[in-house]
């Protein structure tokens, strides 16, 4: 009885280990949109992701991502200064954003993660496109989503003008999993 329980425990632990990935620090999380007719982009340099993903066991797949929005960097000090303010991310009040998946499914050969994303005090359902590529002992996971910034109150008031800053913001992430 005792050895059997141990084996069962090891089996559970083993299966959990097979799909719980460690996210390598070389992973990236970027965003992009259009400003005055020209593409702009930026990145979040600080985020943590808990990824449980196995194509053979999508029912137990889980993506849980914490983003330190105050780490947003566009490479333009003026843009970064605006992002900090209350019309955009409001770092003082809402320093964190959070995504958690509710379901990961396969659709037409591609993986889709449904989940909820919270930015500021707005929580909205979002859908991520996943491109999961196991490679040896590790894997890469490319994530892509198009968000409506106004759904999350990012760029409010006069900044809500989508002819100036596009309403659609593309978020992409390249995760190196080990």
């Amino acid at each position: 009885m005792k050895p059997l329980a141990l084996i069962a425990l090891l089996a559970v632990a083993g299966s959990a280990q097979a799909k719980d990935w460690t996210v390598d620090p070389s992973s990236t999380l970027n965003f992009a949109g259009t400003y005055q007719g020209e593409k702009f982009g930026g990145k979040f340099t600080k985020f943590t992701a808990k990824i449980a993903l196995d194509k053979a066991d999508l029912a137990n797949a889980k993506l849980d991502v914490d983003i330190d929005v105050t780490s947003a960097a566009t490479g333009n000090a003026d843009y970064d200064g605006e992002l900090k303010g209350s019309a955009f991310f409001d770092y003082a009040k809402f320093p964190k954003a959070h995504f958690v998946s509710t379901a990961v499914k396969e659709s037409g050969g591609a993986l889709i993660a449904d989940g909820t994303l919270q930015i500021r005090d707005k929580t909205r359902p979002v859908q991520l496109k996943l491109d999961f590529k196991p490679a040896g002992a590790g894997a890469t996971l490319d994530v892509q989503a198009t968000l409506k910034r106004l759904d999350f109150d990012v760029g409010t008031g006069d900044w809500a003008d989508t002819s100036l800053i596009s309403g659609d913001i593309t978020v992409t992430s390249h995760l190196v999993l080990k």
Partner: protein
Amino acid sequence: MAFKSDANRWGVGARTLHWLMALLIIGAGIVGLYMSDLPNSPQKIRIYALHKSVGLTVLALLLLRFVWRLADRRPDEVPMPAWQAMGARVVHLLLYALMLLLPLSGWLYNSASGYPLQWFGLFNLPSLTGGADPALKGVAHEFHEYGFWLLVVALVAHAGAALKHHIVDRDDTLVRMLPLLRRRAAVPTSVEPAPVAAAPAAAATSAEPVKENPIP
């Protein structure tokens, strides 16, 4: 309405370019002075976008003006002392140089700041620096600003001299660039003295006698 200039008068082409650019330059200057101290907002961005679009228009019209100047003739020089003729040439050269360098330094400043450049929201122009360049940004801005004040000086000299020709010398310098006023036939624009009989009306109605140009 002659499109090209003749010996006595600037043609419609030269006059249109002159006054259209004058309006745009003065407008861009006023907007430029007003906009820089505004707090950042979409409204400020729109005002900057307007300033940039007008500046780019001036640049495009300047290139057209260079081409037109090659195709067109200049009216004969209004007789004036040599130092004044020289002064006029220097100021004209300075104006042309600044009409070129102010839009270009503004474009450079915009590029070095890492901002997009749109012409009236219709299309985008490329960056001159291929991305933000903080060191160049400061230099370009200084150039743009000092260039502007030099332009103000040059414009005051240019407009002041034109008014002096019109009011004091009572010659054709200003009138031949104006869109509506007729030439002052009484005052010669060529080196030969005009026959007095050519303008009896002007001589009769004028309280002061028509001045002869000091240098024939």
